[in-house]
């Protein structure tokens, strides 16, 4: 009898917790510091840099040279000049090398920002992503390499390894799960995947930085107890190809603001 009374109370307490966390998230929407990063990114795009003293304004992000609007939601995609499937960051590295004359190492030197250390790459990603706000996620799958990247990404998603036996799917393969109080998107379910892909990059209030999809994967693998995922590596691009395709048709609302 005591249990019968206690259970509805417990359920209510849990609902209240969820409701208040939702309220917290809503209250954050009023002002997203990602705007500060986006403003810097828009400047970097136009700024001449590197041995060739050139800007990125002629960079081809897939829709033709210099077109930024809508580019993010149609990535990753196959690029003939590099003969590779590339996501935004790996494409930016290619442009920095080809247009600005930077070495690939220089272009990748600071992929993520930290306290007092802004990252040109992160700022560019924040701005370029913001230029796809409100658009549909539509990664191309017409080239065989795009399809292979998707299929390989799917395999990596289910790959269990390391001392904890974790795969991406451990946390992101079922509906309505959460870790601590954070909802976990089921990335095998279209609705969750659309929302997840559509809200990265994001300003993370816990870190006070904008974080990109490359960073999201890097940090997931850290917590999966894997070795370090290298920035713009093939596995990262394949996984992003998988996630983008899973999120196809969703509305892109990033950079978002998250815990």
């Amino acid at each position: 009898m005591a249990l019968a009374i206690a259970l509805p109370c417990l359920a209510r307490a849990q609902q209240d917790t969820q409701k208040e966390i939702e309220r917290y998230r809503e209250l954050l929407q009023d002002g997203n510091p990602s705007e500060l990063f986006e403003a810097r990114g828009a400047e970097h795009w136009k700024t001449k840099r590197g041995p060739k003293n050139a800007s990125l304004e002629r960079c081809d992000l897939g829709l033709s040279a210099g077109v930024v609007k809508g580019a993010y939601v149609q990535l990753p995609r196959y690029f003939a000049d590099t003969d590779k499937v590339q996501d935004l960051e790996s494409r930016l590295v290619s442009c920095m090398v080809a247009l600005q004359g930077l070495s690939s190492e220089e272009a990748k030197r600071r992929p993520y920002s930290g306290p007092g250390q802004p990252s040109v790459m992160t700022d560019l990603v924040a701005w370029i992503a913001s230029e796809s706000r409100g658009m549909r996620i539509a990664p191309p799958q017409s080239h065989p390499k795009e399809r292979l990247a998707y299929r390989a990404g799917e395999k990596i998603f289910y790959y269990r390894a390391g001392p904890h036996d974790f795969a991406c799917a451990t946390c992101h393969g079922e509906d309505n799960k959460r870790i601590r109080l954070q909802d976990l998107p089921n990335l095998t379910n279209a609705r969750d995947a659309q929302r997840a892909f559509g809200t990265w990059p994001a300003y993370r209030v816990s870190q006070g930085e904008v974080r990109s999809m490359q960073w999201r994967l890097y940090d997931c693998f850290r917590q999966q107890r894997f070795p370090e995922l290298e920035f713009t590596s093939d596995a990262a691009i394949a996984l992003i190809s998988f996630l983008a395709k899973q999120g196809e048709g969703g509305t892109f609302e990033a950079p978002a603001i998250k815990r």
Partner: protein
Amino acid sequence: MADAMRIRANIVGDKVEVRVLMSHEMETGQRRDARGDIVPAHFIQNVTVTHAGKTVLSAQWGPAISKNPFVHFRFKGGKPGEKLTISWVDNQGDKRTDEATISGG
């Protein structure tokens, strides 16, 4: 130099709604860096918002204001096209002043 603020000032009814984001670390002086050294306190201490030669908000902050601070407030008497000026000064003497134009409702 610190980055420009992002300021939104819109007329809603007979008031100007002001939302501002500032780019600042807001270091508490208690955090340690990767080497284990204390990162010195670095935070905005004074904020002043003026419109038509009159202060419409002034604030004093401690390091407990979140990184990349956000403020929302409203005042009477502003008209579309008029300027709003926001200034901050931090504990290390860094400062920043930005202007925004009030937009219609």
